[in-house]
């Protein structure tokens, strides 16, 4: 018979080591999981042909693998990743890329200037209601993450990456290649 002391040690160990691991995981988790359906959500287009209009890119890009890059806010960190995403879209004509800023409509002037100065052709958009937008709940976004990048194929999440930056961007590039190969 197992000693109660051993059982107690096992229980305490799992509380001591398991809980922080779980907490860490939930802190860095953001976005719909792989395999979940991508629901439609409207955004306000800041650049591109639909500038100033409410657009549902999930609906518009249904036929093509699409990257939805949700950014917490505008700034240098977003700029470096958005430039990479723009390059990625240029290299892969089969995919569509949309950048969505959670911060909301206040980001519009920055985004317009950024697109103009950097020749960004991917649509730059904002959530209509900022941090209160329903998309955050529907897409299970952790608004504290710098970014959450989801790749969708046929309305299903095929990849989910969090806190992508210019240094680890290769991670996204190789994920995209893998997903496209598996199609």
């Amino acid at each position, binding site marked *: 018979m197992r000693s109660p002391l051993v059982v107690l040690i096992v229980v305490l160990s799992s509380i001591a080591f398991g809980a922080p691991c779980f907490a860490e995981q939930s802190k860095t988790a953001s976005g719909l999981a792989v395999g979940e*359906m991508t*629901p*439609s*959500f*409207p955004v306000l287009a800041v650049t591109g042909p*639909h500038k100033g*209009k*409410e*657009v*549902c890119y999930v*609906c*518009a890009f*249904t036929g093509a693998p699409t990257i939805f890059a949700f950014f917490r806010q505008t700034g240098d960190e977003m700029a470096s990743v958005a430039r990479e995403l723009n390059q990625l879209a240029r290299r892969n004509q089969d995919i569509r890329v949309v950048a969505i800023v959670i911060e909301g409509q206040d980001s519009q002037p920055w985004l317009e200037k950024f697109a103009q100065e950097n020749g960004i052709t991917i649509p730059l958009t904002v959530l209509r209601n900022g941090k209160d937008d*329903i998309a955050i*709940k*529907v897409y299970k976004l952790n608004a504290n993450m710098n970014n959450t990048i989801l790749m969708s194929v046929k*309305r299903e999440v095929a990849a989910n990456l969090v806190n992508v930056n210019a240094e680890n961007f290769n991670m996204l590039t190789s994920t995209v290649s893998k997903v496209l190969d598996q199609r």
Partner: protein
Amino acid sequence: MIARRLITRSSLLIWVIVCGSLVSSAQHGGAEPKRESRYPLITSEELKILIDSKATQDIVIVDTQPSEYFAEAHIPGAVSLPYTNRIKPPVNLPRTKTLVLYCPCQNEEESTEMAIQLERLGYSKLQLLRGGIPRWRELKYPTAEVSTGKDPTEKP
């Protein structure tokens, strides 16, 4: 007798609107660019007339947005049937009425997909709202929200 007269009147109104829109689009392609659609399109303006004249007895407005968005804002009187790539029967919608489907899409992509599935399930009276709810909002038409424990309330 009165009910019968009302039904006849509303049917006539729908018929006039549908014919009017067909003639109008044939003449000058409408205000918006002409698009091919598998199902008849109804404009926001036409739907608004039906709602305002309380002539919606023969139609059911079907909202295909995710339920969270439906709760936030939908066309008054609409019922929620969130988009899915496989509608599971039974569908709680009447077959005798015209279903007017709308989505949050500008080009009716989701409402078309839903209409295709409903057609496979035996629904034959299907129409799509041109431009979906974005166009409805663009025109600043009223939307309703779902408040917990309360009836849908209209807001301007």
